[in-house]
């Protein structure tokens, strides 16, 4: 009984999982960009740039992801009189939200690189950009990765919300299957949870691999 239903459900759920992975990867790229950009803004010497970075972080951390998702998908098009696809609204909302959380990781990791490293790089006549790229970031990145790993799992879980703005992700396919035969609800949701768990674990492995890579050659 159980086995036949599992085989029956798998193809549709896998198709949903593909969308979930797609949203997760695209939103991760967006979130990393937002995190670094706003992290640098908040470290800037200019007070205005610092303020912009802080306002972004506080606004997106202070309101909830689902509200941001709905706002971008339903409210922003009215405000600007444009059309936004569900996919781009999802990637933008998730990217901006987790980027705001990541911003603090970027900022605190860069700040924790010892001051002597900056001074040594300046003494070697490095430009600020070269100093950041060759001296500061290589030391800050390994500090960021564990926290980024945690955020990555949170982001993956956050993608389940895109079902509520009509994207056909893993959660959506589960709800569709359930509408065919609601007596199978427990099996369907158990499979959903299991698939999300597998996805989360795969992402954890990738991050651990990156952690080992960036730690290579360093004490």
């Amino acid at each position, binding site marked *: 009984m159980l086995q036949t239903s599992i085989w029956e459900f798998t193809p549709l759920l896998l198709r949903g999982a593909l969308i979930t992975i797609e949203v997760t990867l695209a939103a991760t790229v967006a979130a990393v960009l937002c995190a670094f950009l706003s992290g640098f803004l908040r470290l800037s010497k200019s007070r205005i740039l610092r303020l912009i970075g802080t306002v972004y972080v*506080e*606004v997106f*951390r*202070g*309101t*909830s*992801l*689902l*509200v*941001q998702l*709905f*706002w971008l998908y*339903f*409210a922003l098009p*009215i*405000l600007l009189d444009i059309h936004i696809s569900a996919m781009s609204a999802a990637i933008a909302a998730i990217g901006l939200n987790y980027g705001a959380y990541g911003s603090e990781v970027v900022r605190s990791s860069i700040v924790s690189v010892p001051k002597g490293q900056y001074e040594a790089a300046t003494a070697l006549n490095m430009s600020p950009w070269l100093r950041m790229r060759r001296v500061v970031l290589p030391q800050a990145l390994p500090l960021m990765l564990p926290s980024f790993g945690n955020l990555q*799992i949170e982001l*993956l*879980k*956050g*993608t*389940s*919300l895109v*079902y*509520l703005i009509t994207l056909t992700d893993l*959660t959506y396919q*589960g*709800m569709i299957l*359930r509408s065919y035969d*609601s*007596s199978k*609800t*427990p099996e369907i*949701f*158990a499979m*959903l*949870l299991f698939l*999300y*768990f597998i996805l*989360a*674990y795969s992402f*954890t492995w990738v991050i651990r691999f990156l952690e080992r890579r960036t730690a290579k050659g360093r004490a």
Partner: protein
Amino acid sequence: MWDWSYAFQILPELANVLPITIAATVVGFAAACALGLPLSLARKSNYKAISYLALGWIEFIRSTPLLVQLFFLFYALPLYGISFSPFAAGVLGLGLHYSTYMSEVFRSGIDAVPAGQWEAAKALNFGKRRTWTNIILPQAVPPIIPVMGNYFITMFKETPLLSAITLVELLQTAKAIGSGSFRYLEAFTLVGLLFFLLSYPSSLLVGRLEKRFQRK
């Protein structure tokens, strides 16, 4: 575009359901604490099986979405004869999900109590129960209050998810207002504003608490 008079007209309707959002947060947080403490104790248990079981449970709940867990509680359990109201399923889901985060917080607090306190309790012939309630927990809990505060705010911001299991809270009300008049802009913006106005000052307050505990 943006209509101020309309915004002021729907504001009372949104403010009306704010207590439901706050109640869901408070009850959910209480549930998370009540479930999180035994979970952290199970994790520290001397019996390997119990400790690993707790670890597996924590890992599983933490790496799967709250939304799907809510669906499970609300749609799947009734088939086994256990049905909840949207509010009950919502706070149970929130509590269950965040109890796994809370158990880690409790664990860090308990681990921070110096070993000498355990030894002293043993030397004074305190039983297991009295050691926990009179010696360990009173020292373990105060330093983690700011972290617990942060999770309280996080849970507050997760309550819009409960709209997906038909609980009429802030977001659900905004959706109803929006679909009634085809004006989503004002309703969703106000919801975002309300969340921000409540969560931002609270996070500043928690930040201050944190600084005070660090100075001690």
